[in-house]
């Protein structure tokens, strides 16, 4: 809702212009200025009031630094381990999906961040079909949203629990992708935005890192895996240029840390070893800064848009078609008793 401010009465009638909080001391009337660009300001206010939602899923074997990276990205203890303080890290026998939400605020902007963790992925001896619980979870979130959307009496703002982005952690072997990685990414790149990262990148020298990245990119291309930013969703030339630069750098080699050390008189996040200190935000050391910029500073809205306009729509189309053809063993769309919705 737009708030209308009652204009302050001047002796001279106020000039035609934006009604919000701008006091024109001098009666300047600009005939060529209509004021459409003020919509940006309105949107900004609305967004700040509403707040943002972001759902990130982290997938990878245990011990790859997923929780640490999440903490580093949002500079606060948002990971599962920080919240559930368990001293021991026991590998669960089956894959669990644990979802933890936090409210973060910065400069008046509020964000509801949900980190979805998947402990137990890829840790067993037999990892056949370990991606299934994850796919089911993602589809369930789409389903919940769809149910709410087709409701007749639906909420003004549908709570968005869809997974916007899935960060996949690749172990730093330095050689090539493992069969498990390829399988997982192939299946999930069709339903969610995947951002692959090389975990614990402080184990690779720069030459090894470049070689590894090249191998990974080749394998992704060879297997037809489209990771974020997807080529087909580039809207215009400008997007394409920016995204091409990003695509040349994927996967990002990241190092996470939530401990601060003193380096050159500054306190920085890093890892201290006997032969040097790795600075997390130093671009010469690792590519964490690029990942953070991609996820938060520049492409967050784009990620959410792609999720809702493309992945979710694909799911919706598939689901509604299934329902129409009297789909097999999938439960038909449940309609509320009070509603009669005709599906064309």
């Amino acid at each position, binding site marked *: 809702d737009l708030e209308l401010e009652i204009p302050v009465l001047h002796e001279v009638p106020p000039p035609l212009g934006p009604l919000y909080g701008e006091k024109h001391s001098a009666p300047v009337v600009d005939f060529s200025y209509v004021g459409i660009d003020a919509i940006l300001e309105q949107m900004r206010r609305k967004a700040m009031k509403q707040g943002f939602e972001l759902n990130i899923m982290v997938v990878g074997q*245990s*011990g790859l630094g997923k929780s640490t990276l999440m903490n580093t990205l949002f500079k606060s203890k948002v990971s599962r381990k920080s919240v559930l303080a368990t001293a021991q*890290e026991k*590998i669960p026998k089956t894959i669990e999906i644990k979802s933890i939400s936090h409210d973060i605020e910065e400069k008046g902007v509020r964000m509801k961040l949900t980190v979805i963790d998947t402990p137990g992925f890829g840790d067993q*001896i037999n990892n*056949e079909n370990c991606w299934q619980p994850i796919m089911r979870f993602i589809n369930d979130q789409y389903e919940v949203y769809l149910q709410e959307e087709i409701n007749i009496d639906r909420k003004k703002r549908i709570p968005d629990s869809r997974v916007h982005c899935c960060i996949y952690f690749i172990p730093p072997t330095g050689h090539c992708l493992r069969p498990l990685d390829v399988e997982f990414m192939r299946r999930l790149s069709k339903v969610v935005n995947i951002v692959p990262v090389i975990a614990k990148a*402080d184990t690779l020298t720069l030459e090894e890192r470049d070689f590894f990245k090249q191998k990974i990119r080749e394998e992704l291309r060879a297997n037809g895996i489209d990771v974020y930013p997807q080529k087909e969703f580039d809207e215009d030339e400008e997007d394409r240029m920016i995204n091409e630069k990003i695509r040349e750098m994927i996967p990002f080699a990241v190092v996470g840390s939530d401990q601060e050390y003193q380096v050159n008189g500054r306190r920085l996040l890093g*890892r201290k*070893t006997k*032969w040097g200190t790795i600075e997390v935000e130093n671009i010469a050391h690792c590519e964490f800064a690029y990942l953070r910029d991609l996820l938060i500073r520049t492409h967050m809205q784009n990620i959410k848009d792609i999720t809702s306009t493309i992945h979710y729509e694909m799911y919706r189309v598939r689901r509604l078609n299934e329902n129409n053809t009297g789909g097999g063993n999938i439960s038909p769309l449940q309609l509320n008793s009070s509603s009669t919705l005709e599906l064309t």
Partner: protein
Amino acid sequence: MSVTADRSSVDSCLTAVFSFTAEELGGLRGLANLPNQVYRKSVKRGFEFTLMVVGESGLGKSTLINSLFLTDLYSKDYPGPSQRIKKTVQVEQSKVLIKEGGVQLTLTIVDTPGFGDAVDNSNCWQPVINYIDSKCEDFLNAESRVNRRSMPDNRVHCCLYFIAPSGHGLKPLDIEFMKRLHDKVNVIPLIAKADTLTPEECQLFKKQIMKEIQEHKIKIYEFPDTEDDEDNKLIRKIKEKMPLAVVGSNVVIEVNGKKVRGRQYPWGVAEVENGEHCDFTVLRNMLIRTHMQNLKDVTNNVHYENYRSKKLAAVTCNGVDNSKVKGQLTKSPLAQMEEERREHVMKMKKMEAEMEQVFEMKVKEKKQKLKDSEAELERRHEQMKRNLEAQYKELEEKRRVFEEEKINWEAQQKILEQQKLDASKSVSQWLQRVFTCKFKFNFSPLTCCI
């Protein structure tokens, strides 16, 4: 004269041999010189050592081997198995001859590419176990042969197991593998790519691993206690550092004017041979410089003997009832074999008798069947004959009836013909009368008649 000349030469030889003083030959009795003799013999013979490396691909196994033995076992021309993706677990063997200071070592490196890399890794340890058992079997066969001049020792003396530096604990695969192999070969767990861990993380990780190893009762290789106190202290230090955290590299980098082997990062150089950076030197000293012989001994005395007794016990217990086990193991194999042969012959005889019985029974049955069918056929034959006779009689009856009818009919026909004749006679007589009347009167009635 030749005899005296020979004797003098022999004398000079002998004096040459015995010109060593008593001290030089190691004490009055010369016993102290025995180790030297052993030493010289071994050096001449050369040493053999087989090392197996197991771990997921990308953990730096090839690099570590290259660093340990300062060779390029896996060079750019012959890339190691890690560069190639494997579909199933393979066991590959490479031999290298290393010479140093007059000592010759035939080093065999056994690699296991594909271990733990697939999506489903159940039983990925089976090829490894099969390999180890086959090498032990080869040695057992060579040992049991009549002519055993050369007994090459290809048994696996040591297995280095690489643990991924997750920082948390052992993976289920690690535990399974070590549990299955700890009584077949000396298992030494290592933390691979240890430059990923900070010193604190490394400590925690090591503690966690040792705790889990004890929990699951895994018997890793234990260093033997020696009498020497100094050595004991060293050994205790090594034990505290288990599992060893290693970093491998063959690249030489210059640090502070010194040339060292290490890995160059933007934030510093991780030196391979620096005791503070990683435990590589400890591993190398332990494996090559101090405990190589002990590893071989433990393999020979413990693991191989285990295998041998299990294998031979299985052979003797084969086909014998378990309740008679007590006395069997001490019987000589020959007697055992004789008994087996006798049993076997008896079994064969029994089988033969049984088969004959069965055969006879079958023959009887068949005969009976044939008789029965013969009787059956006879019966049918009789029945058919009777049927036939009955039909014949019927037919005769019918024929008789038919004949009678025929006679009757013929008789009737005759009567009919007679009647016809009579009738025609009377008609002609009447016609004659008419004509005569006509002639008396005019022809008109005739035309009317016609």
